[in-house]
C-alpha cells in the first residue's frame, strides 16, 4: 500500500504569471518564496513552497503528496506499474523545480496528474503573509473524479486514504488525523476542483468575505459551515478559473480505529449548515 503522509503542493499552469502573482499576493495573501523566469513559488506555512504557478497551459494541474522515504517511493512505483499506471521517474531537474529530493509522477484512474515526493523542503524563516488573511497553511484539495466509487477504491485500497464521511457517494478522505486531505468531486474530466488554505479564526473567514467582495473577487460559496468537517468556509475564484477556499476548524478524527464514515444526503444542507448556496461553483454531482 502506498503510504501518503500529507499533501505537499499544488502546481498550476497559467498563461499570465503576472495576474497570478497579483491575485496570490493581494487577494489570497500568500508569501512569494521565489520568482523564477517561468515559475512563481508561493508559501503558506513552514514549508518552502506549497503552491507553484508555472508558465503554461492552465489545464496542467498537479498535486504532490509526501511519502516516507526513497524505499517507499520505489515501492509505490512498482505497485502503480503492476496495476498498469504509467510511472514517470522524476529527473534531477524536476526534483529541483519542486524543491524535493526525488519524485515520481503518474495519473490516477480519472487522469489526475499526481506526484509522490520525498523530503520536500522546509524553510528556516517563518511564513510572513503578503496580506493579513490569517492563513496558517495549505491543507487539502478537491479533486475531480469521473467515477467516485472507482477512485475511492484507488485512494483507499492502493493508497492509505480512509473515508471520513460521505455526501451521497462523494467521499471525503483523510491520510492523517485531519478530517480530509482529498475531497473527490464528480466531474466530466480530471482536474483540481479547489485548493484549501486554513486560516486562524472565524473572524478571518468573515473578514476575507468582506475584503474579497469589495475587490470584486467572485465569491462562489459561503461564508458557510460544512456539517461534515465542522469547518467554517469561504470559496472564491482566482486566475484561470481555479477555486480557492479558506477554512477554519476542520475536525480531527480522534480515534482512527473506531471512526465510521457518516452518510450525509446529497442536498444543500449537507454542504452548508448555515444556508449559503453555491453561486458559480458546481457542487459535486451525485
Amino acid at each position, binding site marked *: 500500500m502506498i503510504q501518503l503522509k500529507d499533501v505537499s503542493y499544488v502546481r498550476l499552469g497559467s498563461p499570465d504569471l503576472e495576474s497570478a502573482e497579483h491575485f496570490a499576493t493581494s487577494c489570497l495573501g500568500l508569501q512569494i518564496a521565489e520568482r523564477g523566469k517561468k515559475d512563481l513559488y508561493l508559501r503558506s506555512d513552514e514549508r518552502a513552497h506549497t503552491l507553484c504557478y508555472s508558465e503554461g497551459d492552465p489545464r496542467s494541474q498537479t498535486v504532490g503528496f509526501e511519502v516516507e522515504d526513497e524505499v517507499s517511493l520505489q515501492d509505490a512505483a512498482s505497485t502503480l506499474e503492476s496495476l498498469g499506471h504509467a510511472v514517470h521517474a522524476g529527473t534531477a531537474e524536476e526534483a529541483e523545480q519542486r524543491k524535493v529530493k526525488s519524485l515520481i509522477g503518474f495519473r490516477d484512474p480519472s487522469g489526475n496528474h499526481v506526484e509522490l515526493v520525498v523530503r520536500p523542503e522546509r524553510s528556516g524563516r517563518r511564513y510572513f503573509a503578503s496580506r493579513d488573511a490569517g492563513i496558517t497553511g495549505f491543507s487539502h484539495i478537491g479533486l475531480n473524479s469521473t467515477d467516485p466509487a472507482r477512485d475511492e477504491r484507488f485512494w483507499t485500497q492502493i493508497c492509505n486514504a480512509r473515508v471520513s464521511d460521505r455526501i451521497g457517494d462523494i467521499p471525503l478522505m483523510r491520510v492523517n488525523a485531519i478530517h480530509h486531505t482529498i475531497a473527490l468531486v464528480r466531474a466530466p474530466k480530471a482536474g483540481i476542483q479547489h485548493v484549501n488554505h486554513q486560516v486562524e479564526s472565524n*473572524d478571518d473567514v*468573515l*473578514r476575507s468575505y*468582506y*475584503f474579497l467582495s*469589495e475587490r470584486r473577487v467572485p465569491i462562489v460559496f459561503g461564508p*458557510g459551515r460544512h456539517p461534515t468537517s465542522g469547518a467554517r468556509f469561504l470559496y472564491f475564484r482566482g486566475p484561470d478559473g481555479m477555486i480557492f477556499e479558506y477554512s477554519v476548524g476542520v475536525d480531527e478524527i480522534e480515534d482512527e480505529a473506531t471512526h465510521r464514515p457518516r452518510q450525509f444526503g446529497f442536498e444543500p444542507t449537507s454542504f452548508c449548515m*448555515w*444556508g449559503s448556496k453555491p453561486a458559480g461553483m458546481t457542487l459535486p454531482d451525485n
Partner: protein
Amino acid sequence: MNNGRALPLITSVCYVRLAVSEPSASARFMSDIFGLQRVADQDGEIAFRSDDRFRTVSLGRNSADGASIGVEVWDDKALEEIGRRLRDLGFNTREATSGECRRRYVQSALLAEDASRNRIDLVVRPSRSGRRYFPARDAGIVAFHGVGLRTIDRIRDLAFWKALGAEVSDFVGDIAYLRIDGMHHRVALYPSKRNGLLYAAFEVEALDQIMQNSYFMQESQIRILQGPGRQPASRQIFLHVEGPDGLIFSYVNGMAEVGDRPRLARQFPLHPTSLCDWGSESKDVPELGAPG
C-alpha cells in the same frame, strides 16, 4: 456599577414596548420571521417572550403610553433612591398607576424620561414565566440582551444612566457603550438627530445562528441593515435586521465579559473599522455608520 452601594440599583434591561402602525401584521414578523414566542394579547399590547421572563417585547398601537424601555430595579428601596437621584438632576419621573404596572407586567414602577425624551420604565419585580421558552422558529435565541438608544443630548443622557449606576465601557466617537452588569454593555447611546429606540438585541447560541439567520433573512427578503459583523470594542458578533416600521431587531453573540473591576473607558475613533472588525457597513442607518 454599585457606586459604593452593597447592592446594585439596576440589574438588566428587561423589555422593550414598541409602538407600531399595524400590531397584528408586525406580530407575524416577530414570531415567524424573527423567532420570538407570542405569549399574550391584552390591554392593546401583543407580548413576546425570548427567555425565562414573561415577556421582553410588546407591540402596541401608537398611543400616549405606547413605547418605553424597561429596566429592572433591585427593589423598592433602590427605586426610591433612583427617583431621588433623577429628580435632583432635574429629570421627569412619576410613579406608575396600577393600570400602567399591569400593562408592563411589573409590581411597581417609576416612569422616567431621559433628556432626549426616551421613555425609560424603572420597574420592580417584572413577571417571570414558569414554562420554558418555546419559540415559533429555530432562530436560536437564548435571551433578550440589550438596547441601542438614540440620543439628542448625549451629555445629559449619559448623566441619566450614570444616576442609575451604569458605567461607560468604551466610546466610539461619541457613541457610548454602557455597562450595568458584568457584560461589556447592555445599553448603547448613539448620537442622532432624533430620539427613540435604535435597536433591540437578542442573544443567540453561537456564530452558527447568526449566520443561519443571515441566510434566512436573505431568503425571506428581509433587509439586513448591517452584518454579519463584529464590534471591535465588545467583541460582539451582530446582525441588524429591519423589522416593522423601520424598527431594528438584532441577533448578537459573543460579547466580552468585563467583570465588576473598575475599568477606564477606551476611546475608539469614529471610523468604520471601529464599528466592525470584519468590514460590514451600514449604508442606510446613519447612527450605525461612520465616515470612511
